[in-house]
């Protein structure tokens, strides 16, 4: 194996025997000049569609800090962050799932299931050091079941729609429809406590986000996940274990949904089968707002976090301005629509335009000696 490695290195580093010089340096200067002016406009447009959400969030924060004296306070920031935390925790997993061109609608139901199970286990006098790992594991198993069915070829939308239904059903069966209080102070600390001046849920969300970012951008697993969403056939042809990755991303999302369920029930000190209703929509909205493509292959964790914060900042500021809460829903929905419009259609137009105008230059660059090689 070692000498193979060496051959590889030597082939990579020394030019092949007849290697031609990269074509015709004489043409380069003029094109260089041309292409160094043009991309500016291109880059500006690309920047606008790629980072529009970040800019919009920044602008909104500036406007709001003038509109309400309570908005730009540390307390309010932590309020928003604490509300966003359970969404962010799941959305990190969802980013992986969506980047394989999948979807997981069942996360809200996993939250409900873990909520009632945790309350039940704690009531049965189990230690939190048993309860929490146990519910996390149950969440991971729920996810793995989703992943298995998706891997054998069922549409993720339907598989997870089914588990959305049956998991909440199990939560109702287990709790008989009743919410039950959680009395463990240590458990509730996870939702209500502060650590080093920061709310514990925010710390949990930050840790999860960091790990998610590491895995997505710094490891082979991350690249392979994106490759499956980008083009599954290509990933397979390169020998990537598609089954393993699909099952793992759904399991991780199940586990994170369970973690989020723990945080949510701790904050309410209550295990309820009604926890996390419609939460999946918030999670998916945050992820897609953050620029993760529903068709797979493109994803960032930072975008997802900003997406989640964006939704919660809007809600919070409308509340602070005393706007009728029913309108909040209308506004949130409308913003989602506009943001997705920018993220998909406008993004495609701009990228397309940037690419075609750029390609026109490159085509000339790649084959500058046109005509000399032509066969016919």
């Amino acid at each position: 194996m070692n000498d193979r490695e060496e051959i590889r290195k030597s082939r990579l580093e020394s030019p092949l025997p007849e290697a031609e010089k990269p074509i015709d340096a004489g043409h380069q200067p003029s094109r260089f000049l041309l292409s160094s002016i043009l991309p500016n406009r291109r880059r500006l447009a690309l920047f606008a569609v790629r980072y529009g959400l970040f800019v919009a969030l920044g602008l909104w924060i500036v406007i709001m800090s003038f509109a309400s004296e309570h908005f730009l306070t540390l307390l309010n920031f932590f309020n928003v962050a604490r509300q966003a935390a359970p969404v962010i925790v799941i959305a990190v997993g969802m980013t992986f799932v969506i980047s394989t061109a999948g979807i997981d609608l069942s996360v809200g139901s996993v939250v409900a299931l873990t909520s009632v199970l945790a309350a039940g286990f704690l009531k049965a006098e189990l230690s939190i050091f048993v309860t929490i790992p146990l519910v996390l594991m149950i969440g991971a198993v729920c996810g793995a079941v989703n992943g298995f069915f998706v891997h054998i070829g069922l549409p993720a939308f339907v598989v997870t729609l089914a588990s959305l239904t049956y998991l909440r059903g199990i939560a109702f069966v287990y709790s008989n429809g009743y919410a039950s209080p959680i009395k463990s102070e240590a458990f509730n600390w996870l939702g209500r406590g502060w650590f080093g001046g920061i709310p514990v849920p925010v710390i949990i969300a930050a840790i999860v986000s960091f790990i998610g970012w590491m895995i997505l951008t710094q490891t082979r697993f991350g690249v392979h996940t994106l490759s499956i969403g980008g083009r599954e056939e290509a990933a397979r042809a390169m020998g990537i274990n598609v089954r393993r990755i699909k099952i793992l991303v759904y399991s991780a999302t199940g586990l994170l949904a369970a973690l989020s369920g723990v945080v949510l029930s701790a904050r309410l000190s209550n295990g309820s089968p009604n926890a996390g209703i419609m939460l999946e929509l918030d999670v998916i909205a945050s992820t897609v707002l953050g620029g993760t493509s529903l068709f797979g292959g493109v994803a960032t964790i930072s975008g997802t976090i900003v997406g989640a914060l964006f939704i919660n900042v809007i809600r919070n500021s409308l509340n602070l301005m005393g706007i009728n809460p029913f309108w909040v829903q209308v506004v949130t929905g409308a913003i989602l629509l506009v943001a997705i419009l920018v993220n998909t259609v406008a993004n495609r137009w701009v990228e397309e335009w940037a690419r075609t105008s750029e390609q026109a230059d490159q085509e000339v660059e790649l084959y500058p000696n046109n005509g000399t090689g032509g066969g016919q």
Partner: protein
Amino acid sequence: MNTPLVTMKGISKRFGAVIALSKVDLTLNHGEVLGLVGDNAAGKSTLMKILSGAYQSDGGEILIEGQLQRFSGPMEARSFGIEMVYQDFALVPELSVTQNIFLGREIVRGRFGVKRLDKREMDRQSNSHLNSLGLRIPPVSSAVRELSGGQQQAVAIARATGFAANVIIMDEPTANLGAPAIEKVRKTILRLKNSGISIIVISHRLEDIFAVGDRVMVLKRGKLVGTRLVCDTEQSEILHMIVAGEIPRKAKVR
């Protein structure tokens, strides 16, 4: 040196009721360019996907340097230096040039027990490799979907040649390319051959095979029709073999 690099013996493959290949033999010598031709559904791609590990054969055996091998997947075939350039290039459009070249074989650096991608090293190697192939493409950090067809093929070829390949299988390398690009592909094939790599070219275009090939093998409906040295045959003979599925010298006697 007389042992062929690759020997495939009695390879059979069926998909449900369809027999894609029945008892096909193939030999590939060191430093040889072998053309693989045949009509649609002749089984060319299937045979090559078996060699590259993408499919498993139902019968027959594969010998590499005279040693019997079984490939359970593309990774294993690649560990013997067998690489395939797919007709559609099998690139992930959203990933960068470097990410595509190293897909499945990323270089990692261990630190604190966590293996992180060594992106700088991979970028460096893809750059120097593309240069050494005389292929010029935009920055290796650009996404593949931003590249033109010819550039994408350059990336696919770079990926196949970057890892001590012994055999490179090219599936229709000149389909969908303009004349200058075709010329470039032919040059690349010859250059790879001179560096000691054996190449199998699947092509509809006999001109390609006659321009760069040493031997040509004809398949029809999953069966081997015959093999000819390129210097010892002409296009009309090969065409007859492709169309009629028989060797014309016999036919001429009639």
